[in-house]
């Protein structure tokens, strides 16, 4: 017999003999079955896994809700300190309308206006045509001034 392995295809006789031998192994293997105890062990494993998946499914909406709440809180959080530390210049928002110091069409067309809190002697109001009691002329007045981008006063609103 040749000691060196040959890759040449088997001749029909050897091929048939090999088929018979493989068939013997095939038949022997076919007689084997998976151990009986495996099914119960795997079924138990399946139940455990299915239970844990059910928990995951049940908790998933809660997890999503918690995530949404967290994101909302994170998005809102920066606004809250701002609201606490930067109140409107007036401290209140219902102090009434601004009184125009310039023609309304000029004020309306003015780009980049700025509102600035200010405090000045009440006597100054008289210069804008507002009535001032002489005995209170020296008192300070709190107001919000609307300035143009060039620094010109456009309107004023008194605040309490």
């Amino acid at each position, binding site marked *: 017999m040749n000691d060196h392995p040959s890759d040449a295809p*088997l001749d029909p006789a050897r091929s048939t003999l090999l088929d018979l031998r493989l068939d013997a192994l095939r038949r022997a293997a076919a007689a084997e079955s998976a151990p009986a105890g*495996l099914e119960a062990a795997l079924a138990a494993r399946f139940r455990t896994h299915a239970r844990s998946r059910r928990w995951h499914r049940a908790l998933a909406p809660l997890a999503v809700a918690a995530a949404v709440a967290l994101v909302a809180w994170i998005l809102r959080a920066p606004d809250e300190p701002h609201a606490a530390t930067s109140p409107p210049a007036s401290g209140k928002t219902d102090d009434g309308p601004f009184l125009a110091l310039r023609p309304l069409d000029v004020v309306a067309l003015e780009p980049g206006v700025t509102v600035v809190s200010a405090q000045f002697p009440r006597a100054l109001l008289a210069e804008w045509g507002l009535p001032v009691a002489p005995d209170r002329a020296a008192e300070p007045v709190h107001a919000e001034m609307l300035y143009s981008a060039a620094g010109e006063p456009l309107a004023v609103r008194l605040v309490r």
Partner: protein
Amino acid sequence: MTMAPGDPQPELALLARMRRGEEGAFVAIYRRHRDAVYRLALLYAGSAGTAADVTQDTFVHLITRAAQYDPARGTLGAWLCGVARNLARRGERETPVDPASLADDAALPEDRVDRDTPLECLLRDEAAEEVRRALAALAPHYRDVLILCELSELSYAEAAQLCGIDIGTVRSRLSRARSRLAQHLERYAAPQGARESAHE
């Protein structure tokens, strides 16, 4: 021997029910494939204990990673056989092997040929046992195609997919594997014949 294609829909429906947590569906799938998986594992591993472990791990894989199965790539049976093959071969790799022994024509050392496990032996039949020994002595890539194409119910295409080679390579490798197996069997037979002649 090839696996009949059949209608995959009933099995896919079972799989869907299994994934929804129906134990009955899992048991039905298990009963349908357990023996094929066990026999394949037995052919690779050679021992009943290892084959049982491989079978268990294969179905645990199905329980925990069923989403990995893609029906477009083949039948569930072929996928399970692929998982079993990989697990069985992983077990083989845990035993260090001299690379030289993996040469195509290298017979495995005597101590690696599974002769001494009668209680765990796959085959009771003497002729089948001879073939099993010769099979165990083949290089892994030849043993692979023989087990998958000749001894299991997988098509060449399925074997090609499991081995990660093209179908032409499966055919040529199978042809060479059959030659090598025949030569191994003749080598085993020759000393026996010589011993019988000496007795006469």
